[in-house]
């Protein structure tokens, strides 16, 4: 975990510093409270320790005093045998190992025979006990403290005199307990003095160790250290010290505890707490910063979303702008993208009195579909200007859209061409939903969708589309619209809506379909775009006819019209081809021979059809105002001979005279060659 403070805003840095300061101050205050609490605790603890030590010392030393008290009545009883008193002092030494010497000193001239001084002493020399009479001018004990103090001391409590250093006891501090002796008449007799070494008290002092490194010392009133629990006599630095007087013994116990030991734990706890808090702060900062980053990322995402939405709005406007709304009479369309942009499309174009139109649906949705939609519409507009048949247009779109199509996107489309005058509708259906023709679903075999296979050959179909006919084209967004109850709109509902149209304009029908679909799917997010187009024909039907010039290129127009008409009235493709062959052969003859070479002239083609119980009757009439020419009068071509015997000409006339049921020629009064051909196909 790494916090980069420098990357924070200045105000944040100040806040962090402030928080740190507050925490440090709080910890400091807490530390001092803890320390004073520690001191109180230490004081209590040390007092308790001191009391224990004092009591132990008191009792130990009391023992010594007690020994003197035990000795005193025995001394009084044996006053008449002063020399025997050494038995008592010697016995005392034996019983009390801490007693270094026992002394009984008498008042001046108490035993006249013994002189002015008489002091019986038993003391230890090594392991032995030596008795002596120590008093004399050189050892004038009357002047010594233990005696002076002792003789006037409380008779029951005696007196501990100041401890003193004695070289001959191995350099040890010794304290002397003095107890006065009085006889029955209450006259002072002398003093019992017991010298006690103090070093054996060390053990007691050593037990007083409330803290590690504590030193407990016993000192006299002058401050001399008598016994210490430590190795050094010096008082350690930085100590917390407490003291207590030991009974009435002129001694004090002093307990010194190092501050480090007293405050040590508190300090350690505080340091640990400080570190933990620091870690907490850093962690909190990290989390807060991360959240802020996430929030800013969220803001960024929202901003992006807004930008995308506004871009999509623009895209929507562009896409809607691509779609033409300047509908000609008899054609209207509506489109509603599911998202802002979609892949449904429609377009139309008028050329040579023909109305061309396309309704399509790009696979996929959203932007990619919208781009493909735009491309498809643009390509359609380009192709429709050059092409002469719907299948040609679809073929061109297909070969262009199949190239470089890594996304394998495809377009289903229905391309139609309405010849209003002749009531003839030609179309090519590339995998698109079959439209409704006069309210009925067209029975068509669709080709594959556009974009799959560049060299696919699409097929053209035709149907009659006389005055009053209607064609409703739609995309699957209409039929697959879902209601709140998850029902599909379905073909039947569309069918029902279309069935209600009577004398309605194309625009009304298209509107009604879209509105009904939207009503059906109200409030539901729809899965697909919706597009609908309605095409009607209000022109009274005429027999198909063409006025052609005498060039071979006119052949295509004538054959296209005848082919589509034959297809529209229900001839099979074989029959259609047969009719076309007859037309071609007759027309080529007229084009080539009616007018002198290099001059132009007009040729009229009329197609009529009727049907009765015998079948469908189709009649073709070619009229021209060229030189009189009767093809029926020419000798029939010989089709049985060998190749060498064959003439190249004559085969054409042979074909149409043989393919048609009847071929007749007449020269009209206004000087026209009129060639009529009829054929009947049984149904």
């Amino acid at each position, binding site marked *: 975990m790494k916090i980069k403070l420098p990357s924070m805003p200045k105000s944040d840095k100040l806040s962090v510093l402030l928080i740190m300061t507050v925490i440090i101050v709080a910890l400091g205050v807490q530390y001092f409270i803890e320390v004073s609490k520690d001191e109180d605790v230490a004081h209590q603890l040390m007092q308790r320790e001191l009391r224990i030590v004092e009591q132990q010392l008191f009792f130990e030393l009391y023992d010594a005093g007690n020994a003197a008290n035990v000795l005193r009545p025995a001394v009084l009883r044996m006053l008449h045998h002063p020399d025997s008193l050494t038995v008592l002092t010697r016995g005392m030494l034996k019983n009390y190992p801490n007693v270094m010497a026992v002394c009984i000193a008498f008042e001046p001239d108490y035993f006249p025979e013994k002189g002015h001084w008489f002091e019986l002493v038993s003391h230890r020399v090594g392991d032995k006990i030596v008795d002596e009479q120590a008093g004399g001018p050189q050892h004038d004990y009357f002047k010594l403290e233990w005696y002076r103090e002792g003789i006037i001391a409380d008779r029951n409590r005696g007196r501990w005199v100041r401890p003193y250093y004695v070289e001959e006891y191995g350099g040890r501090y010794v304290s002397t307990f003095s107890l006065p002796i009085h006889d029955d008449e209450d006259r002072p007799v002398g003093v019992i003095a017991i010298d006690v070494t103090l070093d054996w008290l060390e053990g007691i002092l050593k037990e007083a160790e409330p803290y590690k490194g504590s030193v407990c010392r016993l000192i006299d009133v002058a401050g001399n250290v008598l016994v210490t629990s430590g190795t050094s006599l010096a008082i350690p630095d930085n100590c917390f010290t407490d003291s207590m007087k030991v009974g009435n013994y002129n001694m004090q116990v002093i307990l010194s505890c190092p501050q480090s030991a007293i405050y040590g734990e508190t300090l350690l706890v505080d340091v640990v707490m400080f570190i933990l808090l620091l870690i907490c702060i850093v962690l909190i900062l990290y989390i807060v910063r991360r959240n802020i980053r996430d929030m800013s990322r969220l803001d960024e995402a929202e901003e992006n979303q807004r930008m995308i939405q506004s871009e999509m709005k623009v895209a929507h406007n562009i896409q809607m702008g691509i779609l033409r709304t300047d509908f000609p009479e008899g054609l209207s369309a509506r489109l509603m993208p599911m998202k802002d942009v979609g892949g449904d499309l429609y377009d139309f174009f008028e050329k040579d009195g023909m109305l061309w139109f396309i309704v399509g649906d790009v696979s996929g949705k959203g932007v990619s579909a919208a781009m493909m939609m735009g491309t498809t519409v643009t390509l359609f507009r380009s192709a429709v200007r050059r092409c002469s048949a719907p299948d040609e247009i679809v073929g061109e779109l297909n070969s262009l859209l199949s190239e470089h199509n890594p996304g394998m996107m495809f377009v289903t489309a229905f391309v139609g061409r309405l010849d209003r005058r002749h009531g003839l509708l030609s179309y090519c259906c590339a995998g698109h939903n079959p439209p409704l023709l006069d309210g009925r679903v067209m029975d068509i075999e669709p080709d594959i969708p556009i974009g799959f296979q560049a060299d696919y050959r699409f097929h053209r179909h035709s149907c009659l589309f006389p005055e009053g006919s209607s064609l409703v084209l739609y995309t699957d967004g209409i039929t697959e619209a879902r209601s709140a109850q998850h029902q599909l709109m379905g073909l039947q509902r569309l069918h029902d809506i279309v069935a209600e149209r009577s004398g309605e304009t194309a625009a009304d029908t298209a509107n009604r379909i879209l509105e009904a679909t939207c009503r059906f799917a109200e409030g539901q997010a729809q899965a697909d775009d919706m597009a609908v187009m309605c095409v009607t024909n209000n022109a009274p039907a005429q027999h198909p006819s063409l006025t052609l010039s005498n060039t*071979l*290129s006119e*052949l*295509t127009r004538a*054959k296209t019209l005848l082919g589509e008409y034959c297809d529209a009235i229900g001839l099979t*493709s*074989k029959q259609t*081809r*047969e009719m*076309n*062959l007859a037309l*071609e*052969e007759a027309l*080529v003859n007229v084009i080539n021979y009616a007018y002198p070479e290099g001059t132009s002239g007009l040729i009229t083609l009329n197609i009529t059809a009727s049907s009765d119980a015998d079948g469908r009757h189709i009649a073709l009439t070619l009229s021209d105002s060229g030189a009189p020419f009767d093809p029926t009068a020419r000798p029939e071509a010989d*089709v*049985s*001979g*060998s*190749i*060498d015997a*064959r003439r*190249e000409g004559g*085969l*054409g006339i*042979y*074909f149409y005279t*043989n*393919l048609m049921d009847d071929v007749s020629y007449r020269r009209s009064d206004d000087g026209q060659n009129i060639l009529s051909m009829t054929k009947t196909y049984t149904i």
Partner: protein
Amino acid sequence: MKINIQTHDDGATVALIGEFDTLATTEMSDHLNEIVALTDRPVTVDCSELEYISSSGLRFFMQLKRNSEQHGGAVTITHLREDVKEIFRLSGFCNLFDIE
């Protein structure tokens, strides 16, 4: 109409696709002449995708036949569709060609 010409060691294979009408014979005359020139060796004409033929188209086959007879080649027509075959039959061309 579209024309595919493939030449190989044993001769050539020609595929005629679409409608072989009068317009096609004028528009595709270069390719058609090229095919005629190949008939000094065996030529197979694949008509599996030939949907329509008029007398102009048949005239091309006649040239093909004549040229191959003059140069010792041979013309084989394969995969004729039924209604195109009908035209061949009607014109007596079935007797002139090897039709498979």
